[in-house]
């Protein structure tokens, strides 16, 4: 390994600032830790945050930035005991997304140990902090609890706006500022709500053959309100 890896640049290079990822107060700490790699206090790091808060995006950006070192992203649901040694082989960093859907707890336990013992790194993403995940294997639970964990908080208005602009753009829709401002002031302020709201507006605009304007946004928002008094996905999220 070359010694260059420890050259400490004076200039700050926001590896995740590009690619549409908005670094904001709610995710700044998570981004800061990722950018610090490999100067971490432990071999692993846990990112947690609500659905839609950009965890997968961060994992993918991080893996892409360190592709040369050997980084791979896997879904927790795909982990099983037998796959662990092969998964680790040839990688410096293993990133596991969506720990909430982990099925084989022993597999993650082995992965944790193997990465640690062999000087590799492990990044985990979950919707909740490790202490609140329903992990049954005590050996795994205590290891997860001991890892540094950093949360992505609830979005502030700027993030909420940026998330929606990006999601509209992903659907090739250009939406005026006034529509975004209207929504941010009135919607449930969560990442999940932003995602579903954009979806609903897109759908309504298609079926009604109308441009996305404030009146259309109001209609969608009111429709949601009239139906349940609450956003319909609230119960779906188990709240």
């Amino acid at each position: 390994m070359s010694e260059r890896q420890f050259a400490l640049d004076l200039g700050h290079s926001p590896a995740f600032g590009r690619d549409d990822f908005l670094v904001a107060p709610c995710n700044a700490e998570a981004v800061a830790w990722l950018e610090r790699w490999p100067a971490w206090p432990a071999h692993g790091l846990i990112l947690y945050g609500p659905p839609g808060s950009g965890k997968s995006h961060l994992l993918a950006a991080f893996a892409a930035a360190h592709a040369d070192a050997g980084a791979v992203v896997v879904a927790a649901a795909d982990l099983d005991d037998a796959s662990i040694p092969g998964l680790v082989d040839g990688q410096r960093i293993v990133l596991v997304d969506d720990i909430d859907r982990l099925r084989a707890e022993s597999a993650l336990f082995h992965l944790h140990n193997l990465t640690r013992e062999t000087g590799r790194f492990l990044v985990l993403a979950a919707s909740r902090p490790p202490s609140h995940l329903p992990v049954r294997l005590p050996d795994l639970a205590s290891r997860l609890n001991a890892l540094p964990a950093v949360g992505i908080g609830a979005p502030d208005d700027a993030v909420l706006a940026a998330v929606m602009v990006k999601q509209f753009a992903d659907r090739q829709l250009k939406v005026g500022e006034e529509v975004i401002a209207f929504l941010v002031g009135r919607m449930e302020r969560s990442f999940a709500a932003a995602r579903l709201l954009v979806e609903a507006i897109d759908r309504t605009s298609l079926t009604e053959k109308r441009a996305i304007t404030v009146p259309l946004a109001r209609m969608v928002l009111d429709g949601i309100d009239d139906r349940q008094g609450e956003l319909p996905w609230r119960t779906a999220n188990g709240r």
Partner: protein
Amino acid sequence: MTSAEWDRVKGRLRDEVGDAAYRSWLRPITVRDTGDGSVRLALPTRFMRDWVASHYGERIRALWGAENPDVRTVELVVDAGGAAPAPAPAPHGAPPVMEPPARPAPQAAFALCEVDEIGAPLDPRFTFANFVVGKPNEFAYAAAQRIAEADRVPFNPLFLYSGVGLGKTHLMHAIAWHIREHNPSRRVLYLSAEKFMYRFIRALRDQNTMVFKEQFRSVDVLMIDDVQFIAGKDATQEEFFHTFNSLVDQGRQIVISADKSPSDLEGLEERLRSRLNCGLVADIHPTTYELRLGILQQKAEQMGALVPPKVLEFLAHKISTNVRELEGALNRVAAHAQLVGRAITLESTQEVLHDLLKASDRRISIEEIQKRVAEYFNIKLAEMSSARRSRQVARPRQVAMYLAKQLTSRSLPEIGRKFGGRDHTTVMHAVKKVEELRDIDQNFAEDVELLRRMLQG
């Protein structure tokens, strides 16, 4: 010129990190060469280089940049000149001021071990000198020391068991370090049970079980960690049983750990169970407050981190599950302080560990916020939705709206509805008002902050 700059940088670092950390990590640094906007600093070992890079690299660079703006990069190199030594065995003998680090994270960048390696590398922190002894673990500690120091096998096997994260692995590594240092000709092999299993399965697949058997049966001390992971795995268990017997017959030492006593391990064959039971079975009890505090004090000192006693007491009190989580918590607090460049306080500790300290991630409701805020400002709960606009009740109401926006994901119209059917623009106004007041009124800012903490539990 450069060395004068370095002296000044060192002086400032010394003020920042304290004498102990300075002596251990920063004093040994020498200036190798400079040029073209960069400085190269040398350290005697790779390990020290990695530690310094991860803990002080940023600060060195920043301080040097302040001394001399031309210096843009600071590079840390190992002085040994190329051939970096194998991971240094933990210094023993003289009690080290600073044992190796909170795990060699950046070391990984340089020493990527093969997945294939037969044993697991030993953690340099896990020595006897670093093991904090207290009532709950003194018996297991004494048994481990006995094994490490004995020339002849005193009991076979030593079976260590306890709940997770209480120091079984630490003791096993400590035995290995001790033997390596005092009796280097003895072959010590430490590995986890799952690794034993992986290797065995691979040997079966590659049809070279003979090599596998040889590897394990030629060691003087075999240590298998977390043996509960092979319970119920019949083929692996069978092989383990034979390895076990073969080693015992040859008078070699075996050390086993598990989460339960041999009698309580499920999925274990009877003959293996009775084998495991016939040596010395030592358990480690859950920690006491005193032991936890002792562990934290030692760990903080090793990290060279300035942790107020109050914070250590708080952690020892709050995190009683096990030592691993306790140390993990201290690690997180220290790492965060370093990340944001601020001192560790009780408040920052609670903030960083809020996910661990909170019993559950229950959501805060608007009703709860209204109740707490009303109590705090000593007004009636009904005032939260009343039409009264005197400042006495309007201000607390605005605080509650502000907190509802910060702490829940409810929409502003919905928040307005819960406050007596007010409009979402009223909520926006309240939020703006509170933000303005927070900036100019220190007492008010503290009230809001305190309420936020109370609500977040």
